[in-house]
């Protein structure tokens, strides 16, 4: 008998297929119409989705909120940029970014995992602020301007070669890459180790008495999340041709958290939908008013109050039938009456 978590992941896979189908349609439309602006924006949304996956592993599964996950995203982006300035190799840039984010997440994890809950969150925030400011003030890294003029590369995959300058081609490369990251995390969550992470979210105090090391599990989750963020960040300079300290900023970290909450924390595929949703909302509202952040902030508060489980968090349970199904249906009317009272 398949358990609930496995079935939930399978539903998530189905929505990943839907996501990919929509992405391919979007790519086809983009390629035919030759509209590179929206394809580039969509690619950026996918890269944000990689960072959101990293946040979801920590927040949605391990139950640890990181407000500084952009730190590793930024490390990946800068290392990738520095490598690409020397040699235009996609795989070398990705490997170096992966290694650098692994190392930095290991060091960051040693510090952040000394504490938990809100203190963990504050340390992740502090770490990203400190490193962000160091980069901001380091002339060799371009200081506040960042690094510009990163050459356009050709990405060799097997016998194929895709130019990062080709909006459709690079969009598809990033899509494949994000699907691989998703697949790796989905695999992890279906292993005993992954299940210990979910146990940490559920009741951390019980875990040591099952014989598992809480510190070790949290540490591995943190490092893996750092690598996922770093690899996603490594794609950024290939897309935009530059990196800046903004990539490590609080707003980048918080965007990823917002994307995860919009899409549904702990649903994995929700990170992808949430990121696209956030980018779409931002660009639509951004075209109406320059004060778009006010509207987005209000929208975010509204969605947290009335849809705390996020998009996928609401959809996926409908595909899971449990004996005690009455419980989840009971919650729906209570939400409705709440929103009625608010009006």
């Amino acid at each position: 008998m398949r358990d609930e978590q496995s079935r939930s992941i399978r539903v998530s896979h189905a929505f990943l297929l839907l996501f990919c189908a929509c992405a391919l349609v979007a790519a086809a439309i983009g390629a035919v119409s030759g509209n590179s602006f929206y394809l580039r924006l969509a690619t950026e949304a996918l890269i944000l989705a990689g960072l959101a996956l990293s946040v979801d592993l920590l927040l949605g599964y391990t139950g640890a909120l990181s407000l500084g996950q952009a730190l590793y995203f930024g490390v990946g982006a800068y290392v990738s940029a520095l490598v690409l300035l020397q040699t235009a190799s996609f795989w070398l840039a990705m490997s170096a970014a992966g290694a650098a984010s692994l190392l930095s997440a290991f060091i960051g994890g040693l510090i952040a995992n000394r504490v938990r809950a809100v203190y963990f969150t504050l340390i992740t925030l502090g770490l990203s602020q400190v490193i962000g400011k160091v980069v901001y003030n380091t002339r060799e890294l371009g200081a506040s301007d960042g690094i510009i003029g990163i050459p356009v590369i050709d990405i060799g995959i097997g016998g194929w070669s895709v130019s990062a300058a080709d909006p459709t081609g690079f969009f598809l490369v990033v899509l494949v890459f994000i699907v691989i990251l998703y697949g790796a995390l989905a695999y992890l969550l279906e292993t005993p180790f992954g299940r210990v992470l979910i146990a940490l979210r559920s009741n951390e105090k019980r875990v040591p008495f099952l014989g598992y090391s809480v510190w070790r599990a949290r540490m591995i989750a943190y490092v893996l999340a750092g690598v996922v963020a770093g690899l996603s960040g490594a794609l950024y300079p290939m897309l935009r041709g530059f990196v800046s300290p903004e990539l490590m900023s609080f707003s980048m970290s918080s965007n990823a958290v917002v994307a995860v909450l919009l899409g549904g924390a702990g649903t994995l595929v929700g990170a992808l939908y949430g990121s696209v949703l956030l980018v779409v909302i931002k660009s639509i509202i951004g075209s109406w008013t320059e004060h778009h952040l006010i509207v987005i902030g209000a929208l975010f508060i509204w969605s947290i109050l009335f849809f705390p489980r996020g998009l996928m968090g609401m959809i996926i349970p409908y595909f899971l039938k449990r004996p005690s199904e009455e419980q989840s249906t009971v919650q729906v009317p209570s939400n409705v009456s709440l929103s009625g009272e608010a009006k």
Partner: protein
Amino acid sequence: MNNTPIMKIEGLGISFGGLKAVDDVSFDVDRNQVKTVIGPNGAGKSTLFNLISGALRPRSGRVLIDGAVLNGKSAGQIKAHGLSRSFQITNLFFDLTVRENLRLAAQYLEPARHAWLPIKRSARAASKVDELLSRFILTVKADELAGSLSHGEQRRLEIAVCLASEPKVLLLDEPTQGMSHGDTEDTKELIRGLTDSVTVLLIEHDVGLVMDISDSIVVMHQGKKLAEGTPASVRQNADVQAAYFGSV
């Protein structure tokens, strides 16, 4: 058959401020028996359990399982020596299913490399889960969330979770707390039936239950061991009667 005690408690003690919560407590626990610690509220029973299971570090004394000293070890290391504990206040993964609660605990039986393989490769854990589900009459509840079970079912699940790692010694902290009379009787039978595979060290308030199922009893009072012996001899003990039974 090995007749040496499986567990030895030697001069265990801890103070909180000026209060000696557990004061120089020593006793042996024999293999495949039910040994029970009783005592009035505040006698130090739960503190004693926390010292044995590594939740608290003792100021003095030692705990040994089959000659291995447990003192100063983490809960995980103590687990590796074959000790598993339940909690007085039900402590489960309430938002996970009954099956997953057991599977997480049974995963401990698998070799370390299985931690990174898909869970369906962990066949031993899976069969352990099925065995415990049927033994603890939870099979029909397997796919419900632990938090949706009745109190009695949660207490049963708590014991099952502790057994899933096949411990040598099982510490049960008031397993029948808050249970109905019927559930208590069932649980009694269950605990009695465990001794073919494990040694049980029990904390209990319910004196009737203790007399029925214990092979041996330790009476605690104000942090100290007051008496030790068979249920009959403890019942006869004048100090015990004054301190405990007299007040019931």
